[in-house]
């Protein structure tokens, strides 16, 4: 029983991270129908930005609330800028072009970032993983029995942040003018412009938001799993993408729920079945969901009137 509870907590914690990354995927996909393959790698860059900031601040400062805020701010703003640049120079010129074209530039950026960060020239960190400094001192938040079940403070913090962000995003998308504009752009950006919506700005902002979010997610991920490496974006990115699809890509709460479900599925496969089949089960689960609900759990396949 205790074990079950612990697995549940682990699964939710893993799912929380997927959720935050998946939200970024879902947003960009929502407005542009672009699978931003570089999203995970942008996250990775964000984590390294946070890492560099943490070291620049020194051991004392980085533990403080201000220090943590600074680390998050630098990483998120830095990534937002990066997202802006990518959108401006690699995606915007291709907006009127076949959709797959932008996917290929995304793949190119992904390669450039993940391989580029494996270099150890100049400021680039090199291939070996690094330990992410403990910017949030891990403490037990809840202990049940003789440490049978332990919930850590950062688990609670990440979970709250994820839920908060989800609620915030949901509000942004459905209850603000910007969200209204986002949705209009997502359905048809040419017509949206005719409504007076500055589409370029909306898309750029969405990218920045999504990239900033990725950085935040990456930092929480680094805090949770304590290590940073140039290839980290690849796996998390892939899983988060799967999560977004399970929930119905483009659907905000769907991304979060899909991610939590995926996190739990993986955890329970490892905990109660064979750990070596984890990825196969995760993807099998995805396929099953799609076969039953072709638009993901919450997405709907747009009805086409003939």
């Amino acid at each position, binding site marked *: 029983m205790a074990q079950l509870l612990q697995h549940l907590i682990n699964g939710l914690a893993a799912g929380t991270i997927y959720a935050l990354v998946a939200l970024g995927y879902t947003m960009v996909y929502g407005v542009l129908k672009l699978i931003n393959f570089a999203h995970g790698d942008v996250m990775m860059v964000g984590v390294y930005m946070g890492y560099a900031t943490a070291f620049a601040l020194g051991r004392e400062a980085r533990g403080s609330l201000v220090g943590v805020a600074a680390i998050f701010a630098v990483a998120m703003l830095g990534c937002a800028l990066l997202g802006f640049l990518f959108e401006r120079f690699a995606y915007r010129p291709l907006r009127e072009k076949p959709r797959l074209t932008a996917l290929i530039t995304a793949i190119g950026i992904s390669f450039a970032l993940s391989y580029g960060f*494996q270099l150890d020239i100049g400021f680039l960190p090199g291939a070996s993983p690094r330990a992410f400094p403990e910017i949030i001192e891990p403490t037990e938040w809840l202990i049940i029995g003789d440490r049978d079940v332990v919930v850590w403070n950062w688990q609670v913090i990440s979970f709250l942040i994820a839920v908060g962000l989800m609620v915030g995003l949901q509000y942004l998308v459905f209850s603000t003018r910007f969200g209204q504009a986002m949705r209009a752009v997502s359905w048809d950006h040419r017509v949206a412009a005719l409504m007076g919506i500055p589409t370029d700005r909306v898309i750029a902002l969405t990218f920045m938001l999504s990239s900033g979010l990725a950085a935040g997610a990456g930092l929480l991920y680094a805090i949770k799993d304590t290590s940073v490496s140039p290839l*980290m974006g*690849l796996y998390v990115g892939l899983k988060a993408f799967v999560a977004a699809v399970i929930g119905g890509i483009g659907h905000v709460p769907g991304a979060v729920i899909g991610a939590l479900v995926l996190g739990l599925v993986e955890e329970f496969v490892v905990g109660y079945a064979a750990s070596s089949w984890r990825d196969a089960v995760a993807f099998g689960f995805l396929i099953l969901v799609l076969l039953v609900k072709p638009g993901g759990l919450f997405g709907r396949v747009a009805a086409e009137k003939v």
Partner: protein
Amino acid sequence: EKKTQPTPSGEAGTQAAQGQPAGTGGTPANADTILLGQVGALTGGQATFGISTRNGIELALKEANAAGGVKGKKLAVKVYDNQSKPEEAAQATTRLITQDKVVLILGDVASSNSLAMAEKAQAAGVPMITPSSTNTTVTQKGDYIFRVCFIDPFQGFVMAKFARDELKLGKVAVLQDNKSAYSIDLSDVFTRKFKEMGGMVATTESYSQGDTDYRAQLTAIKKTQPDGIYVPGYYSEVGVIARQAREVGLKVPLMGGDGWDSEKLFELGGSAITGSYFSNHYSPDNPDARVQKFIADYKATYGGVPDALAALGYDAARVAIEALQRAKDLSGPAVRDAIAQTKDFPGVAGTVTLDEKRNAVKSAVVLKVGDGKTQYVTTISP
């Protein structure tokens, strides 16, 4: 010699390049350079190993050139990346052999890649020395393939013996990296030996290289209440595993193999990894002057304590150089024969004597992870 400091043979290298008419690829050994080749994982999942090895080899060559080279010629090495993929390794090896016409090939670390290389090197009759591929099958590819490290069956045995005899463990759990042949092999051998010695393996869990969350596996392991956990993986994952093991409340010692050896282990594992044990090729504690000089030189050039892969890269290169010196000429068979005769070669990672299976017969050391450095515990001989 000292004045051409940065790269003593730099001129030789550029000359070689310029000497070639444009269009012919590569720089085959010319009159005053002997060209070696290295294929290693410089990018991809195993990049850190390839880079360490490259550093070790580079250092050995620098020293050799400073000491006058081989047969009056300078040594140079061409390094190709294999992106941690065997097909790329085979391609790079073929290129080294046919385009660059190297006399000898060094590499790779991961056994899958070395196997691919071995096939090509053997077929072309170009000797190859792998510094650190421990999978048994590598040197079985033929008589041109050598290694300067021990093999997995031995390493697995070492840890099983240590766990039983020294640590007196009865029940252990195994956590292996399912993406690494090395890890699976060690885990199999360990399990077999440990059982033979009367121990019990409670459960075998696995993860994939590149994962960072092992809590599910560790929670499952915790349920079996083991006395120790054998984690034959790479340091890049092991450090994090140690932290999370402590987090879920597993306080028992962790054990591992040579994949653990890296300075980064301390950083990644923090205090969680202290008190764990792993088998290795060498100990930086070794007071031997040669070892200490190597460590000092390495620190001076690259900053940081060399790991076993750097040490083995260094050893492999030096074994190669010494053999080239002894070889009657630079032809494949001659070099092969010279390497095969390597005996009692004083490497930094132990004395190298190649047996008839072209494996180094070496003892292994067991190291204990301390605070920011390793402590030598014992040596176990075959």
